[in-house]
C-alpha cells in the first residue's frame, strides 16, 4: 500500500515551509481532484499538508474588487451577495460546475489548480502522456479527443483546462495572491497558466511550495451586462464542450468595454483579447458578434475529433453576446 504523511497546518507560513521543504509534498484542500488522482495512481505525494484549517476562507469587499480567500468553497462564493450583484457571470459559472456535493467541498484555490480531465492523463496504464511522463508522447491525439482542447494545443498535448470558474475570472482580470517561502507575490490569472502546447507537464507559474492564498476579482462597472453560457451534452455534472463568459459595457448604442473568456476549448482558460478589440467601438449586433467569434478561434489547432468545437465555440460566444446585449437573432 502506498503510504504518505499527513500533516494539518494551522498557519500559512507553516504550511508553506512544510511543502517547500519536501519536493514530494503537496497541499490538500477540498481534495476533489487530488484524492481522485492519488487513488488512480496518477499522483503519489509523500506528504499531504492539509490546509483546510488555515484562515483563508471567506470574501471581503475591497473597494471595487472582491477578495476571495483561497479556501472559500464554490458554493459559498456562488452565494456571496457581491458576486450575485456585481459578478453574475462568476455566479453562473460556479453553479454550472460539478455538482452540489462537489461544490460544497471544492475550494476556489483548488478549482484554479484542477487538473485536466483527459482520460489519457488520468490512466497510468496509458504509456504516452507528455503531461504525466514528459517526452512520452500524447495518446489523446491518437485516441478519441472529443473533450479536448483546440486552443493552446498541439500534437504534444491537447489537455483541456476544464474549470468553469476560471473562464470568467480570466475575462475579469482576476489577480492570484500567492504566498511563497520568501514572501508574497501577485499575478494576473490570465498570465498564471502555461500552454499545454508549450509545456505539457508544467501547467502554471507556481514554484513548488507556493500557495494560492486568495483571488482578487475586480468588480464589473455598474450597468455592465454579463453572463456565462455552458454548452454540454447533458444538463448537469459534465464539463463544457464549449463555454463563454461575456461582459459588455454598452452605452449610446456602442460597445465601450468587452470582456470575453472561453471555456472548453483551451489548454488554459482562454481570454479572447482580439475578439474583445473587434467589439469595442462597434454597435452590438450579430455581424460584429460573428466577426469577434471568428477572431476568437482563429488560431485553433484541430483533430478530426475536435474540429466541431471551432464552430461550436463561435456559436456559443455569439449566442451569449446576443443574450447579454439583448440583440435579437
Amino acid at each position, binding site marked *: *500500500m*502506498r503510504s504518505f504523511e499527513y500533516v494539518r497546518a494551522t498557519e500559512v507560513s507553516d504550511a508553506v515551509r512544510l511543502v517547500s521543504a519536501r519536493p514530494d509534498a503537496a497541499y490538500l484542500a477540498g481534495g476533489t481532484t487530488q484524492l481522485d488522482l492519488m487513488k488512480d*495512481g496518477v499522483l503519489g505525494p509523500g506528504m499531504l499538508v492539509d490546509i483546510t484549517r488555515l484562515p483563508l476562507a471567506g470574501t471581503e469587499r475591497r473597494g471595487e474588487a472582491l477578495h476571495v480567500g483561497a479556501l472559500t468553497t464554490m458554493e459559498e462564493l456562488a452565494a456571496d451577495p457581491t458576486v450575485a450583484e456585481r459578478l453574475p457571470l462568476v455566479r453562473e459559472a460556479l453553479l454550472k460546475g460539478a455538482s452540489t456535493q462537489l461544490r460544497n467541498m471544492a475550494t476556489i484555490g483548488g478549482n484554479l489548480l484542477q487538473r485536466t*480531465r483527459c*482520460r*489519457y492523463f488520468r*490512466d*497510468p*496504464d*496509458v504509456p504516452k502522456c507528455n503531461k504525466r511522463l514528459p517526452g512520452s508522447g500524447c*495518446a489523446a491525439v*491518437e*485516441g*478519441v479527443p*472529443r*473533450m479536448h482542447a483546440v486552443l493552446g494545443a498541439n500534437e504534444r498535448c491537447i489537455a483541456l483546462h476544464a474549470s468553469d470558474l476560471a473562464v470568467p475570472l480570466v475575462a475579469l482580470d482576476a489577480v492570484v495572491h500567492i504566498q511563497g517561502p520568501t514572501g508574497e507575490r501577485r499575478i494576473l490569472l490570465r498570465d498564471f497558466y502555461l500552454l499545454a502546447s508549450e509545456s505539457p507537464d508544467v501547467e502554471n507559474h507556481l514554484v513548488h511550495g507556493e500557495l494560492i492564498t486568495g483571488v482578487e476579482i475586480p468588480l464589473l462597472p455598474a450597468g455592465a451586462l454579463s453572463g456565462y453560457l455552458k*454548452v454540454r*451534452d*447533458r*444538463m*448537469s*455534472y*459534465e464539463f463544457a*464542450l464549449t463555454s463563454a463568459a461575456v461582459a459588455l459595457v454598452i452605452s449610446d448604442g456602442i460597445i465601450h468595454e468587452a470582456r470575453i473568456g472561453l471555456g472548453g476549448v483551451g489548454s488554459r482558460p482562454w481570454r479572447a483579447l482580439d475578439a474583445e478589440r473587434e467589439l469595442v467601438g462597434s454597435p452590438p449586433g450579430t455581424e460584429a458578434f460573428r466577426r469577434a467569434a471568428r477572431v476568437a478561434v482563429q488560431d485553433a489547432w484541430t483533430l478530426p475529433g475536435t474540429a*466541431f468545437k471551432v*464552430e*461550436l465555440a463561435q*456559436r*456559443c460566444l*455569439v*449566442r451569449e453576446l446576443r443574450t447579454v446585449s439583448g440583440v435579437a*437573432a
Partner: protein
Amino acid sequence: MSGTVVGAGINRVDGPRKVAGAAPYPSDFNVHHQVHAALVGSTVAAGRVVRIDTAAAEAAPGVIRVLTHLNMPRLERGPMTALGASPPPPMQDDLIRHYGQHLALVVAESPEQAAAAARLVAVEYERTEPLLDVLDPKAPQVIDPWGTDSDRGDTEAALASAEVKVTQTYTTPDNTNSPLGLFATLAIWDRDRLTVHDTTQWPSMVKETLAAVFEVPESSVRVLVPYVGGAFGAGLRAWQHVILTVAAARLIGRPVKLVLTRPQMFSCVGHRPDTVQQVSLAANRSGELTAIDHRTVSSLAMEDDDYEAVSAGSAFAYRCRNVVTRDVQARLNRPAPCSMRAPAEGQGNFALESAMDELAYALAMDPLQLRLRNDTDVDPRSGLPWSSKALRECYQVGAERFGWSSRDPEPGSMRDGDWLIGYGMAGCSYPWYSVPCSARATVSRDGSALVLSAVTDIGTGTYTVMTQVSAEHLGLPLGLVRFDLGDSDMPAAPQAGGSGLTGSLGNAVVDACGRLVRRFAELAAEDGESPLHGVPPEAVTAGGGRVHVKGESSRGESYIDILSRNGLPELSADGSSTPASPEDLGMAPSGAFGAKFVEVRVDRDLGLVRIARVVSAIDGGRILNEKTGRSQIIGATIGGIGQALFEDTVTDPGTGRIANGTFGDYLIPVNADIPDLDVVFVGEPDRFSPIGTKGIGEIGLVGIAAAVANAVRHATGRRVRSLPITIDDLL
C-alpha cells in the same frame, strides 16, 4: 379469492429496508477471517504474455497470494446455460484476447493492500495487431448464430420493383450496463461446501456453474443474493472474476472478497455490443410494406458468445410478404458483450423504426398512419394469431395523450424562440420468453405464509408482486405473506432477464399456492370434524385466511384450525411452471408491445437536444402492480434516453482500451435531463400464460431512441442514423 390484491399499486415491500440502508447488497457482506482480492488487467488488446513478474506484489505488505496463468489451477469451462455457453475459464493460458483481460489476481489482508500490490505486477507482452472494428474484414464472422435469420417471399424482387424505397445504414455504439452497485463476490469454502455472495440475476445458474467448475456436488454450493444493486443484464453470467474469487478462496483456505472497480465494470461484466445495420424498406404508394430487408453485423468477443439477434425482430414487426433478416457477429479483441436491457431489440428497433420514419417522409405520409396501415394481428412468421396484441390501441391511446394530431408535418415548422420543436414516434415490441420455474409455498400454524423461489429482484419489484400473487392465491392479507428469494437453496428458478421472469415465476407461484390450498382441502375433506368433510378439493378455494367451498364462504375453516387439529407445524406444496407449446395452443405467444411518442427541443444554433415529453403506451398484458410496473417503464425510458443521446462506450483505436470507463466520462442521464414521463398501460391479460402477464422489463427502453431520432428529424430536417445523437451531429 378477492382479486383486488393483484394489480393494486402497492408500495414495494422491500422499500423501507432499501431507503433505510438496511438492505444488504452483495458488496455489503463480510465474514470473519476474510481476505480481499484485486484484479490486474491486460494493457494490450491482443498478443501474449511473455513474462509476468509478481515478486514485488508478493513482497508488498499484507499480500497473501498472487495468482496468474502460471499458477492458476486448470479449470473446465462452465456448463451450457439457457442463454448460451459459460464464459471461458480465466487465466488458463498466456493468450491475450482483449484490453482489460484478467492477468492476475492479488489477494491481501485488506482491499487497499490488494489494490496497491496489483499495481506492482509487471507484465511483458508480445503484441499482435488487435481486431477492433466490427467491419474489419479480417474479423472472424459467426453467421446466423442462433438460427434466427428469416426468408419470406421474394424480397429482392420486391425491392427491385418497389414504388417507394428506403435503403440506409444505421449504427449503434457499445453501451455499458452501468448499474450503481459494483459487482462483488465473496466466496467462503468450508471443506467441500461453498457459500458465495454474488452479484447475479441467476443464483441457480451460478450454483450449477460453480459446482461443475470446482467439481463439487450442486447440493454443496449455495449462492446468496437477497438484493442486487442493479444489473440490467450484466448479472446473467457467471463471469470470470467470480470463478477467480472462488478459486482463490479454495487455494488460500480463507474467504475471499472481490469488489470490481468502476473501470472494471466496463470491461469485465459485459456491455451492449455495437452494430452496423443496413435496412431496406419498400412500399407501394398507399403505404403498404412490400419488402423488409434488415442485415446486422454486431461485435462479439474473440472467445465468448452472446445472444443478440438484432435483425430478427424485423421479421414479425409488420405485415409484409417479403422479408429478409440476417444477423452476423464479428469476433473482435474487445471485452465480451452480453445482454443489456432490451438486448437486440434496443439496437434493431432503432434501425427499423428510423427507416419506417424515413419511409413515411418518402411517402409523404403520417408516420403513425404508416404503422397503423401495416399492423398485423397474426405473427407473420407462423400465421398464428397473437395470444394478445393491443399495439393498435397503444398507437391510438398514446397519440391521443401526446397530442400527435397537432403535429405540423413540415420539418422545422414548430418553434419556441431558439428552440426547434420536433415530434417523433416509434412502435415497438419485445419478444415473448418463458422458461420453467419452480416455487414452494408454506402456511405455518399461525396462519402466515412463506413463499420461496431462487429468483432475484433486480429492482423490478419481484418481492412485491410475488407477495401480491401469493396473498391472492392463498387468500391471505399481504401482511401475513412473505415472499423470499435470492438463495440457490430455494426451489430452482430461471434468471431475472429477458422479460420472462414474472410470467414463469408467477405461474409457478400460482401453481404452488393452488397445490397448497388443495392439500389443506384434502386434509379437511378427510377429517370428520371439519366443516369441509367430504367436500371434493376441486370445489374448495381460499379466502380470508381460510379454505372454503367456492361460492359459499361461510362453509370452510381456517389454515390455523386445520393445522392445529392435525398437529402439524406447517404445510407446504411445491409448484412449477412450464411454458406451453405455441402449436398446441394454436396461437403465437406475445411479448409486450408499445408505442412511444417523444417531443424534443433542439437549439437551432447550439445543437443542444432536450427531451421535453415522452408518452409510452404499453401493452404488457396483465399488470400485477400498477406502481412498480410504471416504475419499470419509467426506468427503461430513461435508459432509452441515455441510449439516444448520451451513452457511448468508446474504444481507443489502436489500443483497444476503453477510453471513458468512469461515471464522469461515460454519460448517463441525470435528473435534469428527464422530463415528466407519461406511462399508460393498455390491453388485456395475455391468453397464452395462465397468469396473463407479458413481461415489461425491456419494452420501456425499446423505441425511445428511434422516436428521439425521428423527433430530431422533424425538428431540424436532419436525419441522424448513428447513436448517440450529440451536438456535433446537429451543428
